[in-house]
């Protein structure tokens, strides 16, 4: 049965491997040049010395501004496994009528499904693990240059979570295909479902995996208590009474009306800052500190692992009982 599961899906698996190979070549070339520029611009040593690397980082980013569009593509990649491997698995059999051939051989439906899921599932894990490793290596310099790895969008591409995203997408595709039984419709629903669940977990659940820390810092020194690698959920400027006077690091300057002297022309910024400090205004940041990165990866992986198991269990029962 292993041979058949491989033979039936051989072209899909080879196509995906081919895409990954092409990606690996391209990433190999560009990744090496990233690393080189990173070194040449001195960003690595600058960050190690915790100096102000802003200028070098800006240069680096200017060189690679065009690559920003690639990040959304990579985010979709695990979902594509669900769309192209998962959704057609059962839907295509039923649409083409070949289930009347496959399910009348001397194997029970459950065994047939287990082998299909096993072979394709193993392929999913291997491909997504390679993909995750590749992207992690490739984006190392970019992450070092200021996009911290905890940010939504970067967190999703590195570490172990891409493997679990891909497994979930595959299981979702198979389940959707077994219910909908029309390949194209199942592919669409799988993609939307995957995007919806991922967005929900990223924006609604992930900030709350652990109670965020609340850190205050005075105005004027940036967010000194917050590390570059921390995940800042939100930042507010708060006055002495606790009222919010600004969001996202900015301050609504109307609060200075009538309470601050006119700005000094020599150094307007410093005079406003000292006035704000006198008024008791400070920055309050809600963050997830950088040392929670791996526990967050594990929690998110566990969530998607549980979802995957539930979807597989559902599909096995559904196929045995209900459909054609």
């Amino acid at each position, binding site marked *: *049965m*292993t*041979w*058949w599961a491989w*033979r*039936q899906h051989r*072209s899909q698996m080879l196509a995906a491997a081919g895409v990954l190979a092409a990606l690996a070549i391209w990433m190999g070339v560009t990744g090496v040049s990233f690393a080189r520029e990173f070194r040449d611009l001195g960003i690595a040593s600058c960050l190690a010395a915790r100096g102000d690397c802003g200028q070098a980082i800006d240069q680096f980013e200017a060189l690679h501004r065009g690559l920003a569009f690639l990040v959304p593509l990579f985010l979709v990649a695990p979902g594509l496994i669900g769309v192209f491997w998962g959704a057609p698995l059962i839907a295509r059999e039923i649409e*083409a*009528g*070949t*289930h*009347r*051939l*496959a*399910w*009348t*051989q*001397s*194997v*029970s*439906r459950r*065994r*047939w499904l287990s082998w299909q899921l096993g072979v394709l599932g193993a392929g999913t894990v291997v491909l997504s693990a390679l993909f995750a490793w590749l992207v992690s290596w490739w984006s190392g310099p970019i992450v070092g240059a200021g996009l911290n790895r905890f940010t939504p969008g970067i967190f999703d591409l590195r570490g172990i979570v891409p493997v679990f995203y891909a497994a979930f997408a595959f299981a979702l595709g198979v389940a959707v295909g077994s219910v909908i039984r029309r390949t194209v419709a199942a592919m669409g629903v799988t993609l939307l479902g995957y995007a919806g669940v991922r967005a929900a977990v990223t924006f609604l659940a992930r900030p709350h995996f652990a109670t965020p820390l609340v850190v205050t810092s005075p105005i004027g020194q940036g967010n000194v208590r917050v590390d570059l690698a921390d995940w800042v959920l939100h930042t507010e400027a708060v006055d002495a009474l606790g009222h919010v006077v600004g969001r996202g690091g900015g301050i609504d300057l109307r609060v200075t009306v009538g309470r601050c002297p006119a700005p000094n022309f020599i150094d307007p910024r410093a005079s406003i800052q000292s006035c704000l400090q006198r008024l008791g205004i400070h920055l309050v940041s809600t963050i997830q500190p950088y040392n929670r990165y791996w526990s967050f990866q594990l929690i998110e992986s566990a969530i998607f692992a549980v979802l995957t198991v539930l979807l597989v269990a559902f599909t096995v029962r559904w196929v*045995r*009982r209900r459909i*054609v």
Partner: protein
Amino acid sequence: MSATSPAPALVAEGLGKRYGRVWGLRDCSLTIPVGRVVGLVGANGAGKTTLLNLAVGLLAPTTGSLRVLGEVPSGTAEQLARIGFVGQAAPLYDTMTVADHVRFGRSLNPRWNGNGARRRLEGLGIDLARKTGQLSGGQRAQVALALAVAKQPDLLLLDEPLASLDPLARREFLQSLMGAAADQAEADRPLGIVLSSHLLADLERVCDHLVVLSGGEVRLAGDVDDLLGSHRILVGPRADAGSFPANQVVIAESHTDRQTTAVVRTESPVLNPAWQVSDIGLEDLVLAYLGQPAEAAAPHRNPLRTVATT
């Protein structure tokens, strides 16, 4: 005759299958004997495909019970190993070669005669390296048959295998089918066959037992010899159905002003000299039963039920 007779190929009691609000099969009670070539006749939508899909476990019944080779079709591996199935339009994987299909059978069936299948297909001139999507309709049907037979089953179910085949392909297919049955009989493993079609002429050549379905219900079932021997066509002066003696059951009748033509079921010879009696062909017999309304209003209209033989 053996002491314990083998289980019938198929026993249905009150079997029904509903798709949404439509009944594909309704109150079907039927016994198909084992080791025969059974023809399942009916118009499109009569329930033939439903019955065969239920028998092989692709569908689950809504009402009633069904036993195939003595067991309820539950999709277990042992059961599926005993039943060969050729679905409607001979489903095959269009992008795979014929040889791939034979290998597919080997990897999914413990009892597999792949060499026999290959020999049979090569004898028919089918290139094993061709993709099945490129084969003609007749060749696809032959490949599907070869796969089902290579499993060495006890019962072979074929759902309209002859539909959309040209006459030559039909004849070749039936020859292959009978050849496979003969091979297995020689190997002392008799093969029962249930073959559905809406073309009676083909079935007439190979079948020795007939089941007629219409509107999801069984209208007629029995050995072909018995059926042909117990029905007659009577032509004579105009007469009402009620005027027939009790032992002559009128199945169908047509009247002109002065003449009546009736198909009757009777065990004894017709002695009334007013009638011109002739034997009936299978096609006329089936048409006579198919012409009956679903709810038989008149008391003398009794569809012939089952004839259980071993």
